[in-house]
């Protein structure tokens, strides 16, 4: 296969125009010892239908959410994606354009970014949002970086209720020595406010928390933010955008930066990527914002138009003094968020959130009635995700559920070896009562198995 349209005659004609004796003469500057000798050690080209056959085989060997009832969450959720969204996103005009460097021929992208910024602010209760970050994790890291710069302090507190991977990414970014990270523990699933207050010393630049948090618990954002502000630090919330259709937005709690993962808004789970991070602040911090920003202006005839603005914050202008090194972002995924929110609208967004919450509670209550099974965080209020404590190693139950085409939860042992009997379970509006009843039935059958059998089944998994 080739995507080059070139005849031998054209090639000759072009070389003649260049005045080059041969094609090879054009790259004479590459010393011979650095050239590829012969051909690369890779396969011969394949025809489209053969490629399609191979990818279909790979696709079929994965468990996908069309064939399994997916109760996995932990940052990536199986929400409904409208067909109209897929159709719009596949348009070449959006997909094959780049960063709108020439605004006169990029108004589609620029206005979409403006709409995106607007809707993110409506959800988060903030005043300014950028055009997107790579994902929720890097948005948290960049938020920490912003707070360090704004306060001149060097410690960032992070709640243990923040996604463990996000915490890892924040630590990776901090490892450069620009700031230090300290953990704030949970108590019955929610951030422990007394511990937070103890840790909030005058060197603390920011406190990063999640709404709802990794265990699904709805945090008291107001209490967390008030404590943080009392110490003169930034309150940074990492929020779930679906939850924000019903929960008090962190912006209303007084948070200074609200970031999060946009995947639940119309982006496929995609084995965890591409995702999209959102990033919103108050106007007073707009000049510290990382990434692209679209704004309204007028053209020579006075017509409304959109441009990238405050570009002097960015790396291509400011170089080593830029607010961030981000260049390419997740534009098309931000567009997915925009189209998704436009299609579902105020009512639809609220319904998705409410149905997910109702279903999660339906499942949690029935699951917790199975003898030996309980909710790890007791009565703490949760949104569409909860932690189940099981009467035996979780691996065995997850395997039994997989056999019945249920992806039953994320084992918390992944993040904490001591939690081998706990799983994180999510429900979205897509899960049916039938699937949830099958889930509970499978759980009850497994829970009845003798303890020894449970341990053996779990062991044969790994």
């Amino acid at each position: 296969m080739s995507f080059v349209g070139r005849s031998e005659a054209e090639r000759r004609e072009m070389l003649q125009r260049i005045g080059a004796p041969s094609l090879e003469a054009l790259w004479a500057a590459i010393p011979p010892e650095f050239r590829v000798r012969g051909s690369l050690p890779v396969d011969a080209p394949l025809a489209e239908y053969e490629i399609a056959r191979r990818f279909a085989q790979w696709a079929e060997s994965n468990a996908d959410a069309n064939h399994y009832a997916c109760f996995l969450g932990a940052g990536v959720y199986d929400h409904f994606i409208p067909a109209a969204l897929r159709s719009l996103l596949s348009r070449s005009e959006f997909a094959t354009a780049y960063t709108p460097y020439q605004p006169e021929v990029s108004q589609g992208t620029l206005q979409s970014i403006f709409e995106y910024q607007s809707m993110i602010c409506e959800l988060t209760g903030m005043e300014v949002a950028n055009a997107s970050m790579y994902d929720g994790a890097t948005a948290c890291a960049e938020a920490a970086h912003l707070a360090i710069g704004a306060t001149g302090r060097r410690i960032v507190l992070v709640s243990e209720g923040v996604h463990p991977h996000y915490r890892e990414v924040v630590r990776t970014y901090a490892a450069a020595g620009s700031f230090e990270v300290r953990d704030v523990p949970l108590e019955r699933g929610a951030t422990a406010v007394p511990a937070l207050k103890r840790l909030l010393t005058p060197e603390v630049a920011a406190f990063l928390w999640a709404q709802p948090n990794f265990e699904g618990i709805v945090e008291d954002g107001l209490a967390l933010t008030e404590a943080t502000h009392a110490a003169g630090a930034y309150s940074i919330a990492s929020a779930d955008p679906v939850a924000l259709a019903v929960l008090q937005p962190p912006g209303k709690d007084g948070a200074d930066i609200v970031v999060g993962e946009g995947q639940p808004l119309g982006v496929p789970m995609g084995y965890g990527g591409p995702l999209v991070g959102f990033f919103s602040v108050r106007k007073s911090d707009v000049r510290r914002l990382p990434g692209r920003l679209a704004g309204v202006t007028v053209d020579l005839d006075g017509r409304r138009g959109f441009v990238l603005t405050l570009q002097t914050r960015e790396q291509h202008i400011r170089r080593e003094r830029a607010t961030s090194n981000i260049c390419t972002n997740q534009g098309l995924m931000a567009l997915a968020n925009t189209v998704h929110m436009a299609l579902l609208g105020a009512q639809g967004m609220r319904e998705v959130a409410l149905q997910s919450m109702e279903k999660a509670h339906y499942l949690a209550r029935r699951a917790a009635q199975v003898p030996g099974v309980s909710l790890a965080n007791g009565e703490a209020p949760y949104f569409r995700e909860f932690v189940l404590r099981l009467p035996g190693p979780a691996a065995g139950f997850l395997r039994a559920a997989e056999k019945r085409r249920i992806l039953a939860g994320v084992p918390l042992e992944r993040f904490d070896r001591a939690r081998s009997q706990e799983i994180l379970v999510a429900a979205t509006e897509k899960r049916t009562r039938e699937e949830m009843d099958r889930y509970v039935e499978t759980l009850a059958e497994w829970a009845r198995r003798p303890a020894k059998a449970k341990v053996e089944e779990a062991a044969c998994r790994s």
Partner: protein
Amino acid sequence: MPELTLRERSVKGHRGPRLLPLDVPQEGAERLLPAERLRGDAPGLPEISEPAVVRHFVNLSVLNHHIDKAIYPLGSCTMKYNPKLNDEMAQLPGLQAIHPFQSEELSQGALAVIWELHQWLTAIMGMPAITTQPAAGAQCELTAILMTRAYHVAHGNPREEVIVPDSAHGTNPSTVNQVGYRAVTVPSGPDGCVDLNALKQEVSGKTAALMLTNPNTLGIFERQVGEIARIVHEAGALLYLDGANLNAMVGLASPGAMGFDFAHINLHKTFSTPHGGGGPGGGVLCVREDLAPYLPTPVLERSGDRYSWNYDRPRSIGRVHSYYGNFGMLVRALCYVKSLGTTGLAEVSREAILNANYLKARLTEAYAPSHEGYCMHEFVLSASRQKARGVRAVDIAKRILDFGMHAPTTYFPLIVDEALMIEPTETETKASLDAFAEVLLTIDRETREDPERVKRAPTQTPVRRLDEARAARKLTLTWRDLEAERGDA
């Protein structure tokens, strides 16, 4: 008439796609959550029917220039054709509706895709170890410079500086600063390449790394790269290849052979994944064997027929992404390399170089090239002659838009006056290059005969020149700002 915003189109009571009615007993948000944790008012999202939403975005979309419409010669952005099969494969439910935390047993197909892509890319780069976790090129830079720091710390001293040539992309110095190093600039010599004497003066025991773009942003191959590698390595520092211009080398030259310790790949450039109006990109970082322990966690491993993620990486810099990177872009890139195979890959750089040289040859009668001689996959023209007639690079760029084509990158690299940086890529036909050349020659004629016409441009685009200064002065960044400005709020 400009396209209305979604908010301006909103009509109370209109609805888009519906959900099924709730099939479990309803308890109500007020019973499930404490009242003070619920939001008082509904989020101010628009209420629009599905057909109206579709029209809104279709009407917006046609205001964009894009690669499926016409040439998009943005230098260093590699705007090549994005094969349709790639998208189709990435959208297979078994590769798209899959969760990052489903068990490895139920993800073997996804892992096989990543594994196979790794084999292709390491072979192309001539480098042994790889991660595809970074989301974009700039994040590869960050990952590599963090690894540089970890490497030097392990050798007893983190060092202080990272050297970047003055022709480098802004992401380089910005990354260096973000990782807590000092960016030191080395000048380019008259030939456009790194000035070796200046480099020798800058390199010292403080140097942690040198970030080199090869070919550089002038489209010139750094022919002294072997010597540069020797100088850098002798000082105990590491050599990073910014792979922004890899399209000039695929199948033709080997970064591994040149002595690079790190090399990044932008899948959205060289490996044809769509640019998406700004992203997603796809970041790949290849490294020398002894740097592999510092790669981000997890790394993919294979044992017999089974693939698994290895999280036990005590020397790793840690994670840089929530999960495993932009997987959908990896699927597309694998589809692309399998389509091209050995023969197609060899063609990429050769034809990209031919196209750039042909276009350069056609344009140098009217525009001053930054440097004489053959270029690699891109070249830089200076609009200095046109500037003498009162027309600047920005005017020429805007005038190009009137002909339904996209402008080159302008005012970059910074070391060329009135720069127009042109990268046609291999997927443009001769006819397309000729048409673009004719447009630029016409514009040059206009700068002599009717310069005002160029300075007034564009006039054929959906909007005319936009007042960027006003946008920055009077920040209007959301619907609410727009309403406040109009006095509706």
